[in-house]
């Protein structure tokens, strides 16, 4: 057991011990709503921009629209929205 082995063991332990943390990889919005009923991404972008957002990117992730940008207060935002109702489903905390 030398320095290298100790470091590797330590790193593996550190990673494994945080495995229980929540993850937005699990976020889901509306698996049962047919895509035909989804409103266009551009409509969500326009809605947010009308509220004062600066939108950098909108993409589809796990039946959600995932928006990157800056909210009405100018704060950095990564938010998941329901693709039909445009309800906010999850806000990823920005550090």
């Amino acid at each position, binding site marked *: 057991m030398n320095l*290298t082995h100790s470091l*590797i063991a330590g*790193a593996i332990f550190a*990673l494994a011990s945080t495995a229980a*943390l929540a*993850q937005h990889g699990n976020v889901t919005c509306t698996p049962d709503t047919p895509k035909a009923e989804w409103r266009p991404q551009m409509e969500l972008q326009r809605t947010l921009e009308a509220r004062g957002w600066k939108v950098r*990117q909108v993409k589809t992730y796990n039946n959600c629209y995932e928006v990157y*940008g800056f909210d009405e207060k100018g704060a950095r935002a*990564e938010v998941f929205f329901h693709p039909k109702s445009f309800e906010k489903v999850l806000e990823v905390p920005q*550090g």
Partner: protein
Amino acid sequence: MGTKVWDPLVRVAHWGVAVGVAGAWWSLDRAGGWHEKIGYAVAALVALRLVWGFVGSRHARFSDFVKGWRATADYLRRLLAGAEERHIGHNPLGGWMALALWAAVAATCFTGWLYTTDEFFGLAWLEQTHQALAWTVVALVPLHVAGVVFTSLRHRENLLLAMLTGRKRPGA
């Protein structure tokens, strides 16, 4: 016992980055900012290793293992003829593989950091560049491992063990 080849910093940087790359993959889309923290740790190791490539021990230095196009092509020719010599440090192809891996990891760290700045946050093209670089690392790793296994068999030595213990059988 053998002769000392890979100093402790070389080994810690190597395995630290290997664990970090796996950790970065694991931490994708997880809360807690782990992906970023791991990225910074890997970037620090890469920076340290870069400096060590100029001031480190003999086989840690770029001058020891970065060979020109001609020397590398000649080595490849001998290898294809089954007559390549054994190197105590990296062989010329291994040297380029090491450089390619370090460069791809460094570029992945840099684009990841850029994405955290207000100027670049949320930009699709940067996210895609970061992903393409990460996949480049993932594509290089099996080639690297194949090179290690092949060279180990050719010269009847365990290069994986050498990267853990730092030691190799003496000789040219």
